[in-house]
Each structure stands twice: as structure tokens, then as C-alpha cells.
């Protein structure tokens, strides 16, 4: 299904969404209620999502990937940052935040907690449709239709409550609720992570199917690298509130440039008892996002860190070999002051 979308104003080259300078600090309050510190959840990130692509976001807990999703969804207000939706700036003079929200929907990780326990599947889906002004009967009918689209027979499932469904079925209802509002961007925040493997594969196939049929764009957040590799066109790697690397999935999988990305890949389980991982690529846990290290945030766990890494923060700059591939590492930039600077780029 490739009919022209009437909402597509900027043409295929115009990214669906451009995010710039996005920042969110969460205040930590002490017992007296005064702010004692901030969790630097997302610290000045910028990226764009092309129409029809799947942008994968990977990173460990505390890297800010879920906060980014909630910021895009306008569920929390950013401290700073601008959005451009299909060429139109969001906010003053451009499209409204309400309009942005209508074009973006989200599927959460916990299929149980994200469904109202007192609503049936059909009621849950119909709610959003009623919010955008449809009458109850129309909303109900469309909800049933959407259930069919996600592979649930409405005669069997429309009247079911969350506890009467399996995890996979519940997640299908969550997906149905998202697509019922006909969004252009669907954010999948660890949407398949909690599912059993056999069910996960079903839902991944469903997501692929829906993307083709509904002309959707996905922001796919997951900690599972294999799944991200499977579904994504481009990948964004985050570490402690910063983007450390972004680029086409095949390129990143072939030649990851950031030491963190490479460590993340080497941490993957081998899936082959004969080729077990011999030594862990990193030691320790990610640092606390309340007090991130100076300079490059990864330097405390990086085996290649030098003085320059503590002194200055590396900017996210495109690779000279591939403009779509950007890395935030002193090693990747010739003349940065790191002894290995430019060596990797030359080698490649």
C-alpha cells in the first residue's frame, strides 16, 4: 500500500521528525523537598527520523532511551529542545504540540500495566477514538476492525479484559490502540522485550506487516541487539543521556566506530556453545546519571581512554567515509589530541 499520504507535505526527502537539542533533567529532592541534584536523563541530543524507516535505539538502563520516547510523545516536557514535524516547526508559529501528539503514538513494554484492568480490549481501543471526536458506535466499530488488523478475532477478544488474555494478545491490543489513531510515527518502547520468544517472533512479524500496510515509521527502542538489527534501517546508540553513534544498521554492525558500541556488540551472547564468550568486554556497571563523568561519558569504562577524553566532550560528527554514520569519539576525529585519532578511519 503506497498511496500518497495526504498528510505528507514535505515530500519523501523531508524527515518525518527532526529533533534538536533535546534535554531533560529530572530533579532529585531530599527529605525537605528541595532539589539536591539532577538526573541527567537526556542531555542535548539531536537526530532525525526519515519517512517510512525504522530507527532503532539501543543502550543500557539509564541511557535515556525511554525518556527520549516520552519526550517525543509529549508525555513529559523537555527542559530544552525543538521539534520539526515534516518540515513544520512545532510550537510558536508552526504546528501545535497537539498536532504532533496526534501523529505520534506509543506502545509500552509492560503489556499488562499499560492496559486499564477495568476496560475490555474494545473499550481500550475505542477510548482514543472517542477522544479525537468519534461517537461511541463508530469508535466501537473501528476498534473491532483494528483488533482484526492485529490478528485478534473481534468476536473472541473485543469483550475481554486484560487478565483474560495472554501477554502476546495483550501486546497486540496495545499495538491496536496505537495504530487506531492512525499515527505516522509509532514509538515501540521495549514493546517485544517482555514477551516469550515464540510470541515475540509473531509480534515482530505483525509489526513488519503493519508498517507496510499503514505506511508507518517506527522508533524501535530495545536492549536486545539482535532484535534491533533485525527490524531497523538505522540505529542510534545511546550512553548516559548522549548519542554516541548513529548510522545505517549494516554499517554499524560491520564497523562500529565507538568503543562503547563495540563493547555492546561483544557482550552479545554467542548462541553457539562451541564459541562461548571468553572474557567480558567491559567491567563494572554504567555510572550514575546524576554525576556523569566529565568529557566523554564513556571514558571511565573505556579501555582506550586518554587525557583528552576527560578534558573535552567529543561531538557527534559524521564519518568522512559515510555521511550517514556519525560518531561521538575523539578517536574517530583526526586531530582531536587522542593518540589513536584518525587511525581507525585510515584503517577502514
Amino acid at each position: 500500500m503506497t498511496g500518497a499520504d495526504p498528510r505528507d507535505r514535505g515530500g519523501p526527502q523531508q524527515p518525518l521528525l527532526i529533533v534538536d537539542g533535546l534535554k531533560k533533567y529530572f530533579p532529585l529532592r531530599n527529605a525537605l523537598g528541595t532539589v539536591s541534584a539532577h538526573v541527567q536523563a537526556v542531555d542535548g541530543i539531536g537526530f532525525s527520523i526519515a519517512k517510512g524507516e525504522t530507527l532503532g535505539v539501543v543502550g543500557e538502563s539509564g541511557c535515556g532511551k525511554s525518556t527520549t520516547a516520552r519526550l517525543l510523545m509529549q508525555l513529559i516536557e523537555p527542559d530544552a529542545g525543538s521539534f520539526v514535524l515534516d518540515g513544520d516547526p512545532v510550537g510558536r508559529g508552526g504546528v501545535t504540540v497537539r498536532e504532533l501528539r496526534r501523529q505520534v503514538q506509543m506502545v509500552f513494554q509492560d503489556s499488562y500495566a499499560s492496559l486499564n484492568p477495568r476496560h475490555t480490549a474494545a473499550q481500550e481501543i475505542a477510548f482514543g477514538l472517542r477522544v479525537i471526536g468519534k461517537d461511541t458506535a463508530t469508535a466501537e466499530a473501528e476498534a473491532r476492525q483494528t483488533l482484526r488488523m492485529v490478528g485478534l478475532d473481534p468476536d473472541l477478544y473485543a469483550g475481554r479484559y486484560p487478565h483474560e488474555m495472554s501477554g502476546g494478545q495483550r501486546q497486540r491490543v496495545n499495538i491496536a490502540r496505537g495504530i487506531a489513531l492512525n499515527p505516522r510515527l509509532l514509538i515501540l518502547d521495549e514493546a517485544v522485550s517482555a514477551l516469550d520468544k515464540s510470541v515475540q517472533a509473531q509480534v515482530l512479524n505483525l509489526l513488519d506487516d503493519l508498517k507496510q500496510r499503514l505506511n508507518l515509521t517506527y522508533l524501535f527502542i530495545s536492549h536486545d541487539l539482535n532484535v534491533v538489527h533485525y527490524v531497523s534501517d538505522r540505529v542510534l546508540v545511546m550512553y548516559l543521556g548522549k548519542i554516541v553513534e548513529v548510522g545505517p544498521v549494516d554499517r554499524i554492525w560491520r564497523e562500529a566506530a565507538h568503543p562503547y558500541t563495540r563493547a555492546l556488540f561483544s557482550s552479545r551472547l554467542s548462541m553457539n556453545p562451541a564459541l562461548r564468550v571468553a572474557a567480558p568486554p567491559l567491567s563494572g556497571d554504567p555510572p550514575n546519571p546524576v554525576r556523569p563523568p566529565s568529557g566523554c561519558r564513556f571514558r571511565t569504562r573505556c579501555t582506550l581512554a586518554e587525557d583528552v577524553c576527560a578534558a573535552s566532550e567529543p561531538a557527534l560528527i559524521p564519518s568522512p567515509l559515510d555521511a550517514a554514520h556519525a560518531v561521538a569519539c575523539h578517536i574517530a576525529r583526526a586531530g582531536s589530541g587522542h593518540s589513536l585519532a584518525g587511525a581507525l578511519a585510515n584503517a577502514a
Partner: protein
Amino acid sequence: MPLDATPARNGTIAEVNDLSVRFVTRDRDVLVVDGVSFTLAAGEVLCLLGESGSGKTVTMRSLLRLLPPSARIGGRIDVAGHDVTAMSDRQLERLRGPVAAMVFQEPMTAFDPVFTIGTQIAETIVSHEGISYRAARARALELLELVQIPSAARRLDAYPHELSGGLRQRAMIALALSCRPALLLADEPTTALDATVQIQILLLLRQLQRDLGMATIFVTHDIGVACEVADRVAVMYGGRFVETGPIDQVIAQPAHPYTVGLLNSTVHEISRGAPLVPIPGGPPDLADMPPGCSFAPRCSAKSTRCDEIRPVLAPISAGRAVACHHPTLAGAKP
């Protein structure tokens, strides 16, 4: 007086025979483990692999009878020569720790939040071995070093919430090892951890298991984890063993259609570009199991026999067994 933890003459540390566990409440009577049998040799790592509701955790917990009061255990469980089903609660307490210890997915369940790590480990040692608190505290320090906690001496005085996720997991492993168990039971100990931390903990467990010669039962839903740590694997489905064997053989040539399906639906490096082949349908309802093979409703290779007669776990080659009427059919296409 500590219990005897030496394995039986034949080198077996645990032997489970026709284990069944049912949860009985006023409203429901559900058979969650149904006729499971296995033996575990000293120093061996057995992985119980299965999805949610497959009965893997309940099977493992039965070995220490760590089950809710509504559980009814049937069959025979021998751990280090002791009949666990016949033991009193007092005897069980002495079994837990020196003979068999457990690590959990969430370390906060193992620690009391109001005492320091060092105190809790030392007191466990004191209560089980009756040595002085000083000596026990020294042992606690050794243990923290054994599990590779950096600046261990300082961490002895840390409260559980002061440690990061990975360190807390290491501290719990230290607590489990405090009485030198012959058998370690691990319940998804790395599931809640980040990738870079998960691999550290897995490798640590693998190394400790090898160095200390502990037999280990490892419960996981993740084939990748099983590949990293297991010697043998038992694939569970609907409360039953459907396939057992050495991990490399089972992964390379799965014999049960469920194992095949599980491998196919797990996203690999090579999966990209091709649609996944999922197992259709969902996990079985334990309260309403089919009369024949529990996997038959989702199986593409089933015959009428599968709907009627329940297959038993039967050997197919050295060390391997499968509960399927048509095992070769599925095994032919790995």
C-alpha cells in the same frame, strides 16, 4: 551439626524422579510440573530452558522445597542423598546453604535492606558453621573478593541499596557461596541486567562453578544464556520435559518440534531480511491441557496420535532424550 553434603557413591548430587507439583487453592487446582525426572552429576551444569509458565522455576525450587504453601509435591527428590520430600522444615533449613544454595533474579529479595552486606554474609556463615563472628567476617571478605567486587573491604560495610545492580548480583552470589554449597540453584540471575553486565555475571558464574566444582541448575528463558553456561539442557513446555541432551547437540540438531520452533523464532544475527518463523498460537493453559502431547495444538508435524497419546521422554541417542512421536521428522531439518 551440618548436613553431609558429599554426593552419593555414583557421583550424583541430585536425583529427581517423577516429580509433580500442583498448586491447589479454593478456586483452582493446577498441575504446573508433570512427571519430571532427571539426575545431576557433581560439577555438572544443567539448564532448564523454557518460556513463562513452563514450570522451570517451580521444578528448580522443588529441590529445596521453596514453594508457596498451596504447592503439593509428588514424586521423589534426592539432594546429596537426602530425601527432600520427607524432610522436616528444620532439616530443610540445614540443607539450604551448606548443601544447596540459590541465587535469584532480583538480589534485593535475598538481602535484608537494613543490614550491611558484610553482616548478612558473616551471620549466615556463623549460623551454619558455628565459627566466631570475626572468622566469619574474614570469610565474607574473601567471598566478596572471590566474586570480583572491587574494593571489597569497603563494600563489606555497604547496604544493599548502595550497590549498583551488577555489584548487588555479585554480592548475592557471594552470600549463596558462603556455606560452600555442593549445588547452586540459579533462577534467571542475569535477566534483569544490562547486556554488558549480564555477560560479566554469566562468566563469573561459569568460572566459579568450574573452580569450586559446584553442580548447578540454571533456570532461563534465554537460549543465548543456556549456550554460554550449560553442559546439558532440558527444554520444558507445559510443565514437562520435552527434550534433554548436551547443549551443543540440542542447539545444533533439535529433535522436538518445540525446540525447533523456539530456535527459529529467536532472532539471530542472520535473521535480517527474512520473515521470522514463529510458533503459532500461545502457551498452553495449564488448567486445561490437551490429553495427548501438550505441544500438539501448535505443532506443524503432528498426527492424530499426538492428539490422543501423550509421548514419553525416550532416549534417541547417547545422552539425548525427546518426548515426541515424530522426533526425526523435526530433527531432519535443523
